């Protein structure tokens, strides 16, 4: 068990497969940066693999102060037993106060194994992380600067904020595509800390006999935020505004059938009866009139913002926020508001 300490670093597990970092890890670095700055401690990326030191540069650009690098031939492919053994030891050695993992298939396999071994708390699939205080009325104690781990629970019917105050590290997995992707800063450099790894063949519990991985497709279903454009967007060129807004929210671009037929974007992004059905936390409909066939694919969204210059567009009947106006004005305003975190 790791004792509570306030000097502990903030760690992000830098997940890589075949020498390529997962987007989620880079997104997590931006959140990690924010948390580390609030706590006034360093942000470290924890990188495991074989011959992956090239990635340290990128991790620095994306906000890491330090990269804790563990390289070993047996770490070439992700495996629960070898990766958890190495990270368990690193946690015991460095005593970080926060460890974050992407809620990827590997992250959700690895983090609970580590939590069990180091006897720490773990919150799955967080959609937001903050630093805050927690008061225990019974003992009249206030625990300061804890990691507030915010996640939907109960099939999305409640938002729970989870904390752990008496055991470190505070650990969480974070949903993919929830945190905005940071802008890399090529002038930033991370200090690389090389760790010695002791692993033998017996540390690989299982044997990978065959594997087939496809390039990641657009996963609209897994997106927490979707910005969808319709025919009203006007042109493929103007559709870039949809991409920009989606990008700054860490979301995915979607489209109506009309927009796909007009060639603004490819069919993988189509939402509606003949496309994908989605239930994101936030759905932003831009230049979409709201035909029933489109509504069928997005009506389950928790919050809907509709932007259209026709006040009578049917999309407004299902929207929580109605903005009557020109998308060319409104979308840049939204990007500005999000970037400034008003």
């Amino acid at each position, binding site marked *: 068990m790791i004792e509570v300490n306030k000097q502990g670093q903030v760690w992000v597990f830098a997940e890589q497969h075949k020498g390529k970092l997962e987007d989620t890890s880079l997104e997590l670095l931006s959140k990690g940066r924010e948390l580390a700055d609030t706590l006034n401690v360093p942000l470290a990326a924890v990188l495991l693999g074989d011959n992956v030191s090239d990635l340290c540069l990128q991790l620095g650009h994306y906000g890491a102060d330090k990269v804790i690098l563990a390289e070993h031939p047996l770490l070439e492919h992700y495996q629960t037993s070898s990766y958890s053994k190495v990270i368990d030891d690193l946690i015991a050695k460095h005593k970080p106060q926060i460890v974050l993992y992407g809620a990827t298939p590997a992250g959700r396999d690895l983090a609970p194994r580590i939590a069990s071994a180091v006897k720490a*708390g773990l919150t799955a*699939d967080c959609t937001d992380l903050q630093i805050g205080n927690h008061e225990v009325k019974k003992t009249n104690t206030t625990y300061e600067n804890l990691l507030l781990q915010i996640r939907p629970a*109960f099939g999305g019917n409640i938002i729970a904020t989870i904390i*752990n105050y008496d055991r470190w590290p505070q650990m969480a997995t974070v949903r993919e595509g929830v945190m905005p992707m940071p802008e890399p800063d090529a002038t930033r450099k991370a200090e690389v800390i090389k760790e010695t790894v002791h692993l033998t063949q017996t540390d690989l519990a299982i044997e990978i006999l065959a*594997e087939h991985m496809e390039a990641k497709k657009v996963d609209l279903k897994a997106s927490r935020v979707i910005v969808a454009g319709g025919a009203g967007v006007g042109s493929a060129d103007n559709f870039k505004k949809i991409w920009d807004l989606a990008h700054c929210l860490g979301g995915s671009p979607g489209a109506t059938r009309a927009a796909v037929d007009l060639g603004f974007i490819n069919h993988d992004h189509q939402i509606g009866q003949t496309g994908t059905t989605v239930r994101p936390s936030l759905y932003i409909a831009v230049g979409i009139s709201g035909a029933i066939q489109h509504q069928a694919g997005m009506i389950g969204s928790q919050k809907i913002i509709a932007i259209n210059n026709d006040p009578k567009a049917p999309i407004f009947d299902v929207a*929580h926020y*109605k903005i009557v106006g020109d998308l060319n004005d*409104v979308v840049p305003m939204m990007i500005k*508001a999000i970037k400034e975190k008003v």
Partner: protein
Amino acid sequence: MGYNCVVLVKQVPDTKRITGQAMNDDGTVNRAALPAIFNPEDLNALELALKIKDEFGGVVTVVTMGLPNATGVLREGLYRGADQAVLVTDRRCAASDTLATSYILSCAVKKLNPDIVLCGRQAIDGDTAQVGPQLAEKLELPQITYVEDLVSLEETSIKVKRNLGNGWQEVKSPLPAVLTVLDTANEPRVGRAKQMMKCKAAKCRMEIEAIAKEDDCIDVDATCEALDEKGLLIKQWDLDFLEADLQWCGRDGSPTKVHRIQSVVLAAMDTKDVEATQAGVDSMIHELIQDHTIG
């Protein structure tokens, strides 16, 4: 040959049918107000165990942790084909998070000495997918998550196919091992009506004690014995029987605590008019950040 399979199952509230009444004033969930169901992916885990038994022989045990009313899922496990059922129940289990739960379950699993431990990938009330891997760690066994298909079984090893979302992997693991099973793995069988009627009578000791309180004619020991002979006594284990270390159970054994719960059950459809000005857009984005719609 034959394999000793232990399937961990959970009784969960049907989160697809939640109404406003399901929440207590203090923000906790009023489980009593919700229909309780067999966690869907645990049914896939049970089906995989039953297939192994059909093909290779062996024993299938369903285990759950919960209040005595959680025996509903155990009866369901029995009529779908499990050979025996275990209820882990103890007041001191209350407020266990995933870490404490996996510790308690690991104590129960050890008593059963299985070759293969199976559970659903995740439960629909929490969606954490943590208990499987944590249980595997507590048992010091290999874990194989996201199992979609059984490829082959040898005496001391198992080969399965895992679905990783954007691809798959075929892996071989020594036994015993812990498997977490996906909903796409199989189509769970429906129990036979005759079996279902028979298993309705299955009870744990606490349930019989509750009936005896109402009815003086019932002798608890004799009733338990009679049920046991028919294979209908649900084993009831407490933390003393499991020889569990209490510091790892219940609230004490749970590092995570709830700081706050916000209900997002939506009221009737409310549309807010937002002015197409920077100030209007700013206040909307502010609201969305406040309610955690965006991070």
